[in-house]
């Protein structure tokens, strides 16, 4: 018996980059986050080899969930081929040997910055959202320690107040993305800067969503079949972006969230924001045997 036989051969880093103690901490925090939907659980948040603010929170969760049989999809603003999504996907492949995919239906883990895919996620899929600012109360209370007490007291009056002020000043609720939403009737969370279009996809979903802010060191979750209700007044209904009737100039598909592409003549073209969903639609129209999953929105309306 030699010491060498008892140890594993030297490697530059652990499987999934993070060391086991970091993964264990993260798993415990994730479990707590699932147990208390919408509650922000503080965690140590290790440095990873990409810059803070570039998806380090989401990456730590993905690396913790990773196993050799995982199929990982990474999207940035809806696109798989965005440079940062490419970089993260490459890193996950490098340290975890996971299979990379662009197809929402094939993925077991989907790490996303600011979009939820248009195809419905299943119970066996986990959505990991990158979160720049985990605190919905930040506009009314920049101190995190005070905001934490306000969450404890469910003291959300000021959030309704700013929405009301927007209504009075602009005639409309001006909140664009990151629409504050009540989770499980108890904690208000920010759904991360996903468009309003995507918030209804979190409500009573089949899949688990984990939201992780690496820089701000907070993790929270929406477990499957949990209510997520945008903060609205009884007489002012929640409105998603006016994209119901826009048509993608590449795929000819309409009724989904679009990217607007300004044109020289002053007009705009639109293309599907969910890039691989667009690719699949094009492939299908060209006669390829492509399976397109059930979508949350049908004819531009959420079911």
């Amino acid at each position, binding site marked *: 018996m030699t010491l060498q036989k008892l140890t594993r051969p030297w490697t530059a880093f*652990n499987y999934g980059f*993070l*060391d086991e*103690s*970091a993964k264990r901490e993260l798993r415990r925090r994730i479990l707590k986050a699932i147990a208390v939907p919408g509650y922000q659980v*503080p*965690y*140590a948040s*290790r*440095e*990873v*080899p990409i*810059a*803070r*603010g*570039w998806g*380090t929170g989401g990456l730590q969760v993905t690396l913790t969930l990773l196993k050799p049989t995982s199929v990982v999809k990474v999207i*940035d*603003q809806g696109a798989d*081929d*965005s*440079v*940062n*999504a*490419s*970089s993260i996907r*490459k890193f996950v492949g490098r340290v975890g040997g996971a299979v990379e995919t*662009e197809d929402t239906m094939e993925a077991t883990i989907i790490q996303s*910055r*600011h*979009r939820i895919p248009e195809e419905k996620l299943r119970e066996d899929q986990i959505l990991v959202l990158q979160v*720049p600012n985990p605190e919905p109360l930040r506009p009314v209370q920049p*101190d*995190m*320690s005070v905001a934490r007490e306000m969450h404890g007291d469910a003291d959300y009056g000021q959030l309704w107040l700013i929405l009301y002020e927007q209504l009075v000043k*602009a*005639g*409309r*609720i*001006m909140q*664009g*993305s990151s629409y504050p939403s009540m989770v499980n009737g108890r904690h208000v969370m920010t759904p991360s*800067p*996903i*468009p*309003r*279009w995507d918030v209804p996809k979190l409500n009573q979903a089949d899949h688990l969503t984990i939201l992780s802010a690496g*820089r701000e*060191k907070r993790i929270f979750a929406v477990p499957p079949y949990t209510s997520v209700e945008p903060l609205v007044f009884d007489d002012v209904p929640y409105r998603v*972006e*006016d994209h119901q009737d826009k048509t993608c100039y*590449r795929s000819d598909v309409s009724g989904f*969230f*679009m*990217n*607007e592409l300004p044109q020289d003549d002053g007009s705009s073209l639109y293309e599907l*924001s969910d890039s691989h969903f*667009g*690719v699949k639609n*094009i492939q299908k129209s060209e006669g390829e045997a492509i399976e397109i999953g059930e979508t949350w929105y049908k004819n531009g309306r959420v079911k």
Partner: protein
Amino acid sequence: MAYVATRGGERAIEQAERLFRDDLGTITRERIEAVRNGLPYLIDRVMGEASLYEPDLAALALAQAGGDLYEAVLLLRAYRTTQPRLTVAEPVAQTDLFTVRRISAAFKDIPGGQILGPTLDYSHRLLQVGVLKGESYTPDPVIPAAEPAPAVQPSLATWQKAQGLIKDYPAETVAPDDIPDLTREPLLFPASRAHKLQSLARADTGGTLALGYSTMRGYGSVHPTVNELRLAEAPVRMRHPCGTIFSAGRVRVSQTEVVSKAMELELGFSATFGWNEVKVIAAATLDLASNQPNPHPASNEEFVLYHTEPVESSGFCIHFKLPHYVTFQSSLDALRRVKTDREEATAGKIVAEAEDQSEEEEVAL
């Protein structure tokens, strides 16, 4: 028509990275040594902010990043976090420090004496431009003192405490594994003393200076006096599994105590890896200021510790280069709606007014 293939993005980022590295050329062992030996204060600054004491790795990080400090600190932090925490070294008291520089602004002379040590404080800041013309610059030799300064020095604060000038707090005994570790736990507020000093120890030098300077200038009630500033080498002593304590080497450290002259003398403290006087004076001032009742935001503990974190602040700052077109589209939608609402409302009003008028005309007829 198909979407741009995914390879496009991947190829672009790969080539962009190659372009950056191509500008720096081949990194050799000689370059690392030149950086390490020629720029020790830069190495110190980076090691402090990375909270990783390893001059070779710091030099490598600087060389790889082409001197970009935030990139170098991130490289070291990302390496550090993968390393196991083997043990906790024995605590180092001020009297254990091999002190090379020690000054106090509070007294003309202090027990143990003022020791200037290596400093540019009183130098004339003149560029030796002759070097550019090929004349090497060799500094004048140091003439040793008649008597060498003692390697270790007493603590001035201990003398002040004995005089009853500064309140003494009993030292807490904490088991080594129970010492709070900022790199393994989240920073929460109110922060523990350990977390606060650890956070300041690895804070951004520039950020610490900016906030510390604002406090010194008047955004806050603290007008600090440097009670004692030290540049030293601290012995790293570890406990062997069989119980004996042995030295594993030394690390360069700086530390500062500042004292307030308000109602009573109060100490602010900061220490960091490496010799970095600006940072420890600024950080000790922030420590002192943050302990005051209702501190100004510039010295509020949460404000200071969050915003002087070099990896987090720099990362967030540069993340604004990432595409934000989905969030932008979402805001644009709301803005456009307000505009169309207003136009519709105005049009409605004109129609209504026109109708009113025609009714009046009818009545007149």
